[in-house]
């Protein structure tokens, strides 16, 4: 993730409570994008942070994480978001990062059906689309990424209980957790 090419220039902003990044997507139009790593909860002395990402409307002063802007630069935007992950771990080296898509909320399918033109029959094709893009990247680069990071995947069962397990490539997860591996060298 640290050697990603074709990314936008980022502005980093760290405060006591969070870490934010800003950049401008320059596709069909200029769109201000914001990334925020927010504290969620403590777990065994480590903090869990959530990755949030969306569009900022400067005029309305509003943020949206559920619009598909189709600005024609999706890969560059995605790579730019990924490129902030090593910076996150530079700031929070012993903490856990949690990634979930805004289209993975239980009520998403109901809302999607109201406006979607895909006419999906059995399974909503937009459900968990965002986390699937992240998973796709992890699956494709798993060997290389595993040198520096430990991955876990979260699955919601039919009873809505969630199991978190060591990550298996190409398995469907609705959340991904990762933390930086620590190597202790003795000379």
């Amino acid at each position: 993730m640290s050697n990603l090419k074709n990314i936008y220039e980022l502005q980093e902003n760290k405060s006591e409570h969070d870490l934010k990044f800003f950049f401008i997507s320059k596709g069909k139009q200029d769109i201000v994008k914001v990334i925020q790593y927010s504290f969620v909860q403590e777990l065994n002395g480590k903090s869990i942070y959530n990755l949030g990402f969306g569009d900022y409307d400067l005029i309305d002063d509003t943020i949206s994480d559920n619009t598909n802007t189709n600005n024609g630069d999706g890969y560059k935007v995605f790579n730019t978001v990924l490129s902030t992950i090593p910076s996150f771990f530079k700031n929070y080296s012993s903490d856990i990062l949690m990634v979930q898509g805004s289209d993975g909320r239980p009520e998403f399918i109901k809302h999607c059906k109201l406006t979607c033109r895909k006419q999906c029959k059995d399974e909503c094709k937009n459900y968990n689309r965002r986390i699937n893009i992240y998973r796709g990247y992890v699956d494709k680069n798993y060997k290389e990424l595993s040198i520096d990071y430990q991955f876990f995947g979260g699955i919601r069962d039919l009873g809505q209980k969630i199991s978190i397990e060591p990550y298996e490539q190409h398995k469907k997860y609705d959340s991904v957790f990762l933390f930086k591996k620590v190597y202790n060298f003795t000379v």
Partner: protein
Amino acid sequence: MKIKVTKSKELVKVPESGLLSLVASKLKDRTLFPQKVEDAKKYLQKAKLSSL
């Protein structure tokens, strides 16, 4: 006959870094994705975290 003249708003060019600094200052100390943080909290409440 009177002609109504409307003046359009003047556009100002701002350098990219200046714009992002302005955004950063406007969004300082704000939780930008409160719904996502709440979703994450609810998700973790239902999760077995022993393997993490």
